């Protein structure tokens, strides 16, 4: 039975990854992914024209700080966030709008296996694209501004990639469920965007109701949010990562429950 489910998930992955990265639906994903890469190359180009980088970003530690800012503001909290919103919300909602969900519902596949397959395909698609973005931006800044020891950089890069994968997992689970429960998921997407963006200024208890809070412990370098930031003890790594996986699993169970109850109306007949 497990091997059948695995084959079915592979079948879904084949279709869905293609849909997420090779169809017109992928265009917003690529446009969002292009933003941090473009910003990085503009920074590099401007610095080249000016002749030298700004003093606060010169040298190996400067590149590290610059990338930390770019990653938090230009990738994690903006482009990656909206890419996840776009891809995961459309996993089922997009099929309903395209009127193509029935092809899955007419297959001998458990609907919760379908949820798992679609979630995995979206996770792979966004993770791969933004891992490439992270590597390109990280590499470009460190090559131009100079780099620290290679082992140190490899550790940092891996930490950033882990944040990308975890963020896709956490935000992805939330927005897949939002796409299943809500007719207009744009409103929760915007609300969560501001909630996550303002996380640094929330009281300690409220901070815990956000994805970004649990990613904090993975950041190799933290950036200052200014004098009004409320500092809270970050969650230890050994709680944060398994907690993330459990949270995503529970959210997928909820999505599985909802999809089992879902009906399709073909005509008014």
């Amino acid at each position, binding site marked *: 039975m497990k091997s059948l489910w695995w084959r079915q998930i592979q*079948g879904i992955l084949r279709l869905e990854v293609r849909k997420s990265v090779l169809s017109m639906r992928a265009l917003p994903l690529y446009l969002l992914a292009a933003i941090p890469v473009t910003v990085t190359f503009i920074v590099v180009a401007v610095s080249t024209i000016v002749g030298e980088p700004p003093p606060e970003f010169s040298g190996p530690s400067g590149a590290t700080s610059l990338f930390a800012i770019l990653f938090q503001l230009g990738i994690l909290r903006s482009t990656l966030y909206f890419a996840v919103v776009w891809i995961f919300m459309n996993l089922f909602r997009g099929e309903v709008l395209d009127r193509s969900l029935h092809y899955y519902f*007419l297959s001998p596949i458990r609907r919760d296996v379908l949820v798992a397959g679609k979630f995995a395909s979206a996770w792979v698609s966004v993770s791969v694209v933004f891992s490439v973005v992270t590597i390109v931006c990280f590499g470009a800044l460190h090559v131009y501004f100079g780099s620290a020891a290679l082992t140190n950089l490899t550790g940092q890069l891996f930490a950033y990639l882990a944040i990308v994968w975890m963020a896709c997992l956490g935000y992805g689970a939330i927005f897949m469920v939002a796409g299943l429960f809500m007719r207009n998921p744009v409103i929760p997407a915007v609300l969560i965007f501001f909630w996550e963006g303002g996380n640094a200024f929330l009281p300690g208890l409220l901070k815990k109701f956000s994805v970004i809070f649990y990613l904090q412990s993975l950041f190799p370098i933290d950036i200052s949010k200014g004098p009004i930031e409320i500092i809270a003890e970050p969650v230890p790594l050994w709680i944060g990562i398994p907690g993330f996986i459990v949270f995503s699993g529970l959210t997928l169970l909820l999505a599985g429950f909802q999809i089992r109850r879902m009906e*399709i109306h073909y005509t008014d*007949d």
Partner: protein
Amino acid sequence: MTPASDRLVFDNVSKFYGEVLGINRVDLSIPPGITSLVGPNGSGKTTIMNLMTGLLRPSQGEIRMLGIRPDNPEELFRNVGYCTQFDSFPRGASGQQFLYNYLRVHGHTHADATEMTERAIERVGLTHASTRRVAGYSKGMRQRIKLAQAICHEPAVLILDEPLNGLDPMARAEMIDLFRELSAAGQHIVISSHILHEVDLISDQVILLNEGYVVAEGDIQSVRTEMSGRPLQILVRCDKPRLLASRVFEHESTVEVRIHEDGGGILISTKDADSFLIAFNRMVLDNEIRVASVTPADADVHAVYQYLITQEGEA
């Protein structure tokens, strides 16, 4: 007698869309063979099909497809294929890719999926166009590829929503032959159609629906016979139509007699077919009339549909 697990069973099933009635208290027990769902738009044909395939859940009652509950897709769709009326396909996919991907989602291996895809495409006569994009297919070709999708895993039950729509006469004849072939192999085939002439040709039994209710069920002849309140029309071909008409008119059960427009027979309406036919034999013998044929003139789906649905709607 077909065992219950070989039937498609609806037990007191109702479906409401909010306040709107889809179907109400439907009891069905469909044996193998070709069964047609007939009724006007909004009568509940597609609702019944969607309930059979678990795309809708009943508001009340229970459904068993060969003993399988429709909310168990893993088992259901190993045994059921559904050709929907809905015309949307994955973007950019060719007919071949469309079927192949569907079979991979079933869990078939590459080799099996490839072989089953080829077989199904050949069966619906689309081999020449299998590598073309579905988006470029004609309406008839799209209908065929949907049919191929429904039969590609060789299900025991085929549910076909308006399967002959958009097909040219040649393709229709081919599809009808295919349905007969599948039915002869013991499959259940449930068809909804507005083309009553074709329904009449291919159905082993019909289910007539109107406004969410089953108004008649069974083979056409027995449905017609059970409509005792309605006069039965009989066409008699004979050598002395005028003489026969005058004799027939004397019988108490006769409602109407008309000379056929070609002058070679008469069209009789009788409210008691059994007693009329006994008396009819006597009339023929006594008057030495040579009778070429006696056939029911309105025992087809169209007539039953007219009586049960159109006239009730007008009443």
